[in-house]
């Protein structure tokens, strides 16, 4: 039986599947194809994709399907499924649409390339690319550097030294968040000023994070952190600037980082991925391939045998690609 489990685990990972939302529609990349499904889960089109999908990034009217192993990205028009495949630099691991252009992060070439021409050299091991306020932010793990890039001129405008070896990087537009599994820390920096704003202990081995709700006049951003060692998703208040904190009268904003709220959700297995949208938060365990929905202090399994990227949060529920079929779990 154990032997069978191994075979299933590794056979399933041989051909990845990734699901992403494009407004109310769902994009699924699987088995060398890219397909668009409408809100009723009817297939709109099916197009040629990439051999082994690593990541799907959706932009205004287009979707980029990345094959990190083969150094290929398929760029497909969401309206009709027409598109092209482009060769990238070595190991494209992330991408972002900005100002109508697609930017691809080629990790093992230490470069950010713009589809159609232009590139910029980055610090070694650039692993995460985020767009914020018309700028691009890249975090490179080896030196722990965040570099800000002007996408029009393709040049580095500012850089910030943070700690190396973060396992995820997210931003709510005002604050950048970096999570460190080895140190069990969350570090933050101000995106407008590109200055470090603080750090705080975060669980046991936090690996993945998601911005659960963005800051507004009444509250700071809330973050969800997946911690497989603690088998929990921690809910953390994000950083606030001094002025925003004063506006809301929260003294803790002066510390640069919000406090841990006591809120967390417990799971039967160690979850290492977290995703949030609106009122829905999902957690995923790569080892057991189980997808959980976070409900208060408990995680409820909603699907099993799901690929690591095989789910997304739709406006009406959770879409899951399972055994060649797209399902909507309300």
């Amino acid at each position: 039986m154990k032997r069978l489990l191994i075979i299933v685990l590794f056979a399933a990972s041989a051909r990845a599947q990734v699901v992403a939302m494009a407004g109310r529609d769902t994009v699924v990349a699987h088995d060398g194809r890219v397909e668009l499904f409408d809100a009723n889960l009817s297939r709109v089109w099916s197009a040629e994709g990439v051999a082994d999908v690593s990541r799907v990034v959706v932009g205004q009217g287009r979707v980029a399907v990345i094959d990190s192993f083969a150094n290929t990205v398929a760029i497909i028009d969401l309206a009709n499924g027409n598109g092209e495949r482009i060769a990238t630099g070595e190991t494209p691991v992330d991408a972002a649409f900005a100002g109508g252009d697609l930017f691809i992060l080629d990790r093992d070439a230490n470069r950010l390339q713009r589809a159609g021409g232009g590139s910029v050299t980055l610090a070694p091991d650039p692993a995460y690319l985020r767009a914020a306020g018309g700028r691009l932010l890249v975090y490179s793990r080896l030196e722990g550097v965040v570099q800000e890039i002007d996408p029009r001129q393709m040049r580095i405008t500012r850089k910030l030294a943070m700690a190396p070896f973060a396992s995820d990087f997210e931003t709510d537009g005002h604050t950048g968040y970096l999570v460190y599994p080895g140190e069990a820390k969350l570090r933050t920096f101000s995106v407008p000023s590109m200055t470090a704003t603080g750090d705080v202990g975060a669980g046991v081995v936090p690996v993945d994070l998601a911005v659960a709700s963005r800051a507004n006049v009444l509250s700071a951003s809330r973050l969800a952190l997946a911690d497989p060692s603690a088998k929990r998703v921690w809910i953390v208040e994000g950083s606030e600037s001094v002025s925003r904190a004063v506006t809301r009268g929260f003294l803790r904003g002066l510390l640069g980082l919000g406090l841990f709220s006591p809120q967390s959700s417990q799971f039967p297995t160690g979850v290492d991925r977290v995703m949030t949208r609106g009122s829905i938060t999902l957690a995923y365990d790569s080892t057991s391939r189980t997808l959980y929905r976070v409900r208060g202090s408990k995680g409820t399994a909603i699907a099993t045998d799901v690929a690591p990227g095989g789910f997304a949060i739709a406006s009406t529920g959770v879409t899951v690609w399972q055994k060649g079929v797209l399902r909507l779990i309300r």
Partner: protein
Amino acid sequence: MKRLALSLLVCLPAFAADGQPRMASDFEIARMKQQIATSRDFLSQLSGHLNLGDLYLSRSESETARSQYAMALEIAGREARRARKASDIMRYATAVGYSALADARLGKDGAAFDAAEEAIRYTSGSAKSWNLYSSAMTLLGRTAKAASAARNAVTIARGELARSPTVANRLDLATNEYTLASAVDDDRQAELLLREIKVSLRSDDFAALRRDIARRESFEIYSSARGDAAAYLSLLNRAGLRLAGLLEKRGDVDGARHEYESVLASRTDDPTALSALARLSTADEQQRYFAQAFDANPFSMTLIRQYQRHIDENTAIPGEDTAGARMRAALIEMQRGENRLARTTLDSLVAQFPGNDTLRALRRQTEVTAGVPAFLTSNRSGVAPSSAELRQIIGLLQSDGLTPEQRASLDQTTLTSAVTFDSATKNDGQTIFESGSIGGVRFRFGEPTAFTGTFPMQARLTYRILGATESGGADALLLEPVRIAP
């Protein structure tokens, strides 16, 4: 003196108690089997199976090697699940990194890449994780990914050494530098790294470890070395071989020879070094190196191809009865077209080493290939057959593999070939020939045949094939001459 003791010990495992030379990997295989049988911990089991896989692969036993890699993958997967259950995420990441390596060994590129990425998610600050990543990508031929990962490993290892200059950290840095040297496309950079490794390993920093190795009389070379002593020896061996290979590639024969000899000073039966020295040596040394290389590993296709280029009409069948000597004999017999003899020799080796890919491939080459030569069905005369087609005909005739129609066609077909006769007797304006060869295929006539005129030993012969026979101990064609031209 200690160095001598080590060198002498290195010679010992090459010879079994029955006086038969053993293959270079015999000792390591026995050691790994013992390790698997007596140890229960994850790394002992994992490294045992990975090493056995590599050792069997070096002996062209790919099915056995694959089964060992599959076991390593199963062990790594089990360890990953156990670690995850125990909430030990760093242990989980290490196990997944080893899964990537085992997957890569099994040629599962997608699974290997996924596993390597999964391990790095948790441990991007670990030189070991990047090293595993790089090794897996090197195995899959993804050198740019491998080089990038290895550069990360070297940077991290250098930082660790700067913070804590221990012998273990020096060894880790050297290991990661070796991985980088194996991955980079730039030979010059690789050479610099390998020289740096050698200088480091020969430095006083490792004096205590060298004394320990001498005291323990250690000599084994593993691809997955456990412990400082095994890692030191394996690294010294592999770095030396790779450096020698680079020097040879850029034409520095003396430098390459020096490095290969340096490898042999630590491990006298290293098959790669022996094979290389056979390639780089003078004619009088070549036979000795070839003999030693074949005894160390008779099944290396690189060595076999090298030896096949070396064989000429003066190469004698070796008199010894070792596996290496019998392999050389089979290759010589094949070269002479003595396929029946070669099959017999190879069969004796197959009985001793069942499941060997090299033996299977060579055995196939001595057999009759499927179908018949095209000239048998084209009903054309004056055909110039290839050596392979003539060998095919010998095989078909020996095995009675021709249909009556094909046999009739063969009887009627006249063929023309450039021939080299063994000898010529000239008498009263006639030249008498009896036997010779066509592109390495032996032939003879039914009896000495006199041709009117004077002809050289090399001529163009038009003939019919009467049957298969022997000539000078080799398989041969029995020919009926039709005409001869200079």
